[in-house]
């Protein structure tokens, strides 16, 4: 055998050269590998959604190999004893087979479902980060809108996936969707008939939803995700203000090797967590629900958590039916179901434009805002979160009422009043907290840090020594501009005291008592 010439390194260079000769890779690779990303934990939330989406594609492909989207009637004779001899659809039978007879099928199904919940939960948390830090402002409004569209595509993708097994719970969900569709004035009944191919549940809806679930929606989502991430690349990631960070630079780590390593590690960790959850926690035990039968509606029938908010609104809305006899009636479910959902789609889409209109801020922003610096927006965000949470809670109000021994009627009335009053109250409280935090930042900038050292005048007056953050004028005031970033609030953050070693939950080392060795210096520059 001929001995290879050269070291490992020279072989790599040679291979790289050969590849570049053929595919012209050097230029783009250099740009990509040198791209800089700012480093902050809150910038990784979108990645949780991205990586769980990839996991959804992988596990979904596995399930697609065995699932049969057909409503043909069969008699079950599989492994699960209590359903043997029961009439059911082919879709439900194949879902049972995946759970009980296909090797690894149950854990794959559970991974798929947990990953779907994780995907939606991560989108929500990611969206909150973007909202509260003002990352959606110009020039990134388009990417915000794409994100909102992705959430709603994920919403329907998840709902259709929940409907496919044709078990008791998924059929109940479809029935509610049918009711909502039918409630739309004039076109409702026609739209519903088109959807179900006539009378509910019909024989075609599962195979239609299947194509939506495994092909159409994932394809659109994949395309939008590529655009979403591509826009982050092109527009560059936002960053927190801070030393050396401006509107015109990006401070952080290069793509290679630092960032890519973290990303790959994080991806594998996310998949690991999902797999662990799929092994430990039972999710959607379809064999308990039985085949779908229109006459069966179990108590405790809930949709997955991201749909529960709408379910809650429907449960809370009073039974107000609008009628013009004998031709027209508008059922109450129209308001929370159709109008509620419509507003939840449209208002978030329009929010960047609305904020531009009210603040008249048309500048480009690459630096993020701290939530306290936009008190109206932060208040509004907390208001929406409270509204959403009360909606979700009311969506599960029967489970809540039963387990915590509260009357279901009391839960409903709590929801009806709470969903109006609590968000408004929280808006005001949040607004005041934001102003208070701003005030304190400015106070520290003008008067200095509290040192915790109490002094007493010859007249007997007590005062606390303050450490100014710059050379003070004759009144002891400093003229420091607030630059939108953390103002130090403790002596050990400005180097006057040794910084404490931080542990995970609390400081390992307590700050030195009584000012320590620097006490004399602090007192020398005494300031009230």
């Amino acid at each position: 055998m001929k001995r290879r010439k050269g070291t490992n390194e020279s072989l790599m260079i040679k291979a790289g050269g050969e590849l570049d000769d053929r595919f012209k890779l050097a230029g783009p690779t250099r740009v990509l590998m040198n791209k800089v990303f700012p480093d902050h934990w809150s910038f990784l939330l979108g990645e949780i959604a991205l990586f769980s989406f990839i996991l959804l594609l992988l596990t979904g492909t596995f399930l697609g190999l065995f699932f049969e989207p057909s409503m043909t009637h069969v008699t079950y004779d599989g492994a699960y004893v209590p359903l043997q001899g029961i009439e059911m659809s082919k879709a439900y039978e194949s879902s049972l087979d995946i759970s009980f007879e296909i090797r690894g099928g149950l854990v794959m199904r559970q991974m798929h479902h947990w990953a779907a919940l994780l995907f939606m939960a991560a989108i929500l948390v990611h969206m909150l980060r973007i909202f509260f830090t003002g990352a959606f402002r110009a020039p990134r409004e388009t990417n915000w809108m794409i994100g909102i569209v992705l959430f709603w595509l994920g919403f329907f993708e998840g709902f259709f996936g929940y409907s496919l097994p044709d078990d008791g719970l998924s059929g109940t969900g479809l029935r509610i969707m049918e009711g909502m569709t039918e409630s739309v004035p004039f076109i409702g009944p026609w739209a519903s008939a088109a959807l179900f191919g006539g009378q509910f549940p019909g024989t075609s809806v599962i195979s239609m939803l299947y194509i939506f679930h495994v092909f159409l929606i994932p394809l659109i989502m994949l395309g939008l995700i590529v655009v979403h991430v591509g826009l982050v690349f092109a527009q560059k990631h936002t960053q927190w203000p801070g030393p050396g960070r401006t509107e015109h630079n990006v401070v952080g780590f290069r793509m290679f090797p630092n960032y890519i390593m973290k990303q790959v590690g994080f991806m594998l960790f996310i998949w690991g967590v999902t797999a662990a959850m799929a092994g430990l926690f039972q999710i959607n035990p379809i064999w308990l629900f039985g085949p779908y039968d229109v006459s069966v509606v179990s108590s405790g029938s809930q949709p997955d958590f991201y749909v529960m908010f709408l379910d809650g609104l429907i449960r809370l809305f009073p039974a107000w039916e609008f009628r013009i006899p004998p031709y027209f009636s508008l059922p109450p479910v129209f308001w929370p179901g159709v109008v509620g959902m419509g507003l939840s789609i449209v208002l978030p889409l329009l929010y960047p434009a609305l904020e531009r209109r009210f603040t008249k801020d048309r500048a480009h922003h690459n630096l993020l805002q701290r939530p306290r610096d936009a008190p109206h927006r932060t208040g509004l965000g907390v208001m929406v979160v409270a509204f959403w949470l009360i909606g979700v809670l009311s969506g599960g109000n029967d489970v809540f009422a039963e387990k915590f021994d509260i009357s279901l009627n009391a839960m409903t009335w709590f929801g009806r009043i709470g969903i109006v009053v609590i968000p408004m109250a929280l808006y005001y409280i949040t607004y005041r907290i934001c102003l208070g935090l701003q005030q304190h930042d400015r106070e520290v900038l003008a008067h200095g840090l509290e040192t915790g050292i109490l002094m007493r005048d010859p007249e007997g007056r007590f005062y606390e020594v303050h450490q100014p953050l710059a050379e003070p004028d004759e009144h002891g005031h400093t003229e420091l501009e607030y630059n939108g970033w953390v103002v130090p609030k403790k002596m050990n953050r400005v180097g006057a005291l040794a910084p404490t070693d931080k542990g995970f939950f609390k400081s390992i080392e307590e700050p030195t008592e009584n000012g320590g060795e620097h006490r004399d210096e602090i007192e020398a520059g005494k300031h009230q």
Partner: protein
Amino acid sequence: MAASAKRRRGWRKRLGALARFTGALVIVGGLYSVFSPSLYAQEAEDNAIDSEVVKGEELYSTSCITCHGDNGEGVEGRGPSLIGIGSAAVEFQVNTGRMPMAAQGAQAPAGEAVFTEEEAEWLGAYIDYLGGGAAVPDDLEILVEDASVGEGGELYRVNCSSCHGYAGGGGALSSGAHAPELSGVTDDELYQAMLTGPQNMPVFADNELTPEQKADIIAYVQYLVNDDKDPGGVFSLGRYGPSTEGLAIFLVGMSTLLLATLWIAGKS
């Protein structure tokens, strides 16, 4: 001396009379028992029932009468009449600790039974004596043994799941009432509940669900709560469906991953 001898003779005379009387009784009784044995046996059984009824009445007068009134006639605003409800209803309510009720509320909660099963039977006998009513068939064990779990599942989903839930975990009803969870409930109690409709539960009389169908449901419920070992994982999340799954994804999944982001990325 003479007086004492006279007294002794009188005592002997009385003893003799007693012996003769006893002898006569034995002969008459013996003859009676020889000539009518069936009548004698019948009477003994009647006595047994009477004594159960009597014992039941005693318990009733100390623990139930305040709300259910004299002779189970009921008291307006406190407790319903018990005439005609039968022993199955009494045994269910008493054995599950629902009765005697500690306080008036939306619904009597299940709890520690106050009476033993035997005492519950006496109470049942007394209420049955007052006006008859439904009772659990004696061959329930055989019925359940021959029951079909699959049929039971279908009947359960149509008839029971709307309150007790798909997995027998229970559910909320209006105004503070609830359908209890079904784990740890015996076959007898399940049958009694279906037959008599305790608290807010509807009655499933034999013309709605035959005894065989009731046994099917019992077999399915016992399968559901005892034999279905939650193949999907170590934790069943209480089988409450998507509500606890939603909690789990935030409390377990998202919080683990948020800690991971704090671990691998910058904090300020």
